[in-house]
């Protein structure tokens, strides 16, 4: 009988368990901050369009662009970079102005590009927002439209001797967003 009691208590002790000190408040310190990256705007125009235009401004348009002021993104974006690329294979010097507009149409930020006639290197530029040296993140948060205007600083008759001459404007955005 004594053996049985001993065994019984051994079982009870065996089932007794412990949990080492856990600190679930650590969850509050967990950061989930992915960096997301996507293209923004692509504009392509053959040289003939530039030559056919009346006046220097051969293209101007305002695009609705709600990606930045979507509530979740606007509330949680931390910082980021917008990358621009211009490739000019036309025979003209061109000026491209890229503007961020808010809901009322007010200009929040402007980026201007001057690019030489072909042959010329691809113009690349990165503009930072939100970090210590970057521009205000409010520009991004409040942007609801983008205006692109393109001007011809050269003549209206010449044609590049490169195949299929055109201007290509490329842009992409890379931002850190806090999910938690």
């Amino acid at each position, binding site marked *: 009988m004594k053996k049985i009691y001993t065994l019984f208590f051994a079982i009870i002790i065996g089932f007794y368990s412990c949990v080492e000190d856990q600190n679930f408040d650590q969850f509050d310190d967990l950061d989930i901050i992915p960096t997301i990256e*996507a293209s*923004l705007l692509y504009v392509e125009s053959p040289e003939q369009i530039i030559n056919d235009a009346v006046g220097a401004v051969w293209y101007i348009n305002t695009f*609705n662009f709600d990606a930045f002021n979507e509530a979740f993104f606007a509330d949680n974006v931390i910082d980021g970079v917008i990358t621009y690329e211009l490739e000019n294979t036309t025979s003209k010097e061109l000026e491209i102005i890229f503007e961020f507009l808010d809901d009322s149409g007010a200009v929040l930020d402007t980026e201007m590009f001057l690019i030489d006639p072909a042959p010329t290197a691809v113009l690349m530029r990165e503009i930072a927002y939100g970090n210590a040296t970057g521009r205000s993140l409010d520009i991004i948060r409040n942007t609801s439209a983008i205006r692109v205007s393109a001007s011809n600083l050269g003549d209206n008759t010449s044609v590049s001797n490169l195949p299929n001459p055109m201007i290509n404007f490329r842009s992409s955005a890379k931002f850190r967003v806090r999910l938690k």
Partner: protein
Amino acid sequence: MIKSKLSLCIALFGITTLCSQNKELLYDFTEIPQALLLNPGMESSFSWYAGMPLLSGIYGQAGTSGITVNDLFANDGLDINDKVRTRALNGMTQRDEFGETIQIDLFNGGFRSIKKPQDFYSFGVYFEANTILYWPKDLAYLAFDGNADQLGRRFDLGHLKTKGEGLTVFHFGINRQIDPKLTVGVRAKIYSGIFDFNSSRNDGYFTTTAGQNNILANTMVADLALRTSGLEEIRSILSDEASGSVANVITKRALFGGDLGLGVDLGFTYQLNAQTILTGSLLDVGFVYHSGDILNYTLQGRATIEGVEVILPDAFSDPNADLWQELVDEVEAFIPFEENSDSYITFRPTQMYGSLRYNWGVPDTGIQDCDCDINGQLKTSRFQYRNGVGGQIHIINRPRGPQAALTAFYLRRLGSIFSLKTTYTVDKFSFSNVGLGVNIQAGPVNFYATANNLLSYSNLADSNYASFQIGLNILSWGNN
């Protein structure tokens, strides 16, 4: 508030749900009537038994593979972000899982046929709920790291796999001793599904590559689906969109008012020789047909975007076009997020047990083994060896394929009051799973308790796996 209630509800359902469901301690523990639920062909010598309602079988199990609570939340002074990075993101694979199971006997009983004493009938109703969530590795990387600076990397959407269900099971089993060496059994089951959700056949990927026109191209190829049953009505009540009470909905669905299904358990015990016994069982070969309160979600299609694109001179044709909205509409058209209420079938997580046991030792009661059947004079003698040792196998079908567990066990009987079973189990959760089960027979009162992975009890938070089962029955052998 409603959201938090719903979250709590789902969390509770979740907590009450899955894992490997291996009940290695209870299997072939022939003194415990509930072992018949694991092998309807178990050797039994009960005359009758009656489980205490709601107390005859309470089973809970939780498991994680690849990580423990302690790995992340130990008060060790380390930065949790570093711990998540090294132990979860970099330490886990899409085969690692989180899961829980709960099973509660609502009532359970059994009796031996008077006219045909080699037949033993058992019946009852139990509630079972289980969930499983596989670690969505690529989606976790996408959430923590994003897609930047990872050109060409494919984030596999197929890593999203989860499944959960809650149901009541009405069962009736027949256990027949064919001859002194062979006992077989079968159990019919009717399932009454309370809730179900599953998203386990997902496919597709998300990738970022160099764009054809623009700098980058984001491509998504998706074939995702989440099927739910029995949750929408609860959600509507909790969000005050419908009248009624959640309790009523659950009760109604638990009593044949929800999804219905059929299943069967099969089992046998065969005495290879006087001291060696082979057993096997196949459980939950069945299905549930989900036809009520269905709400399914799908996301299927393929789209590649390179931002807003203005191609001149084509764009001059509609200078006022909302190109951003067109882009959004285009993506939604290519990869539509849709809902439907199509009925569906789920198959139960079929399980298989097998064991080989060698018995020895003189019984404490002094009763010797006999070559007799259930009609024999010494009805209890067939399991009165003092010791039993052997091995068991358990296999269960899971969304990522079968999971197996191997168990070595030792069974010890101490007089007519105590029986003990200890196990050592190896599975994907643990290589150090030692379990202990005890059965106490005090007159007609039978109490049992089992728990496994005892070595981890020094710090449960650091355990990958834990389960327990307790139960209380009134039972009788022989002519009691």
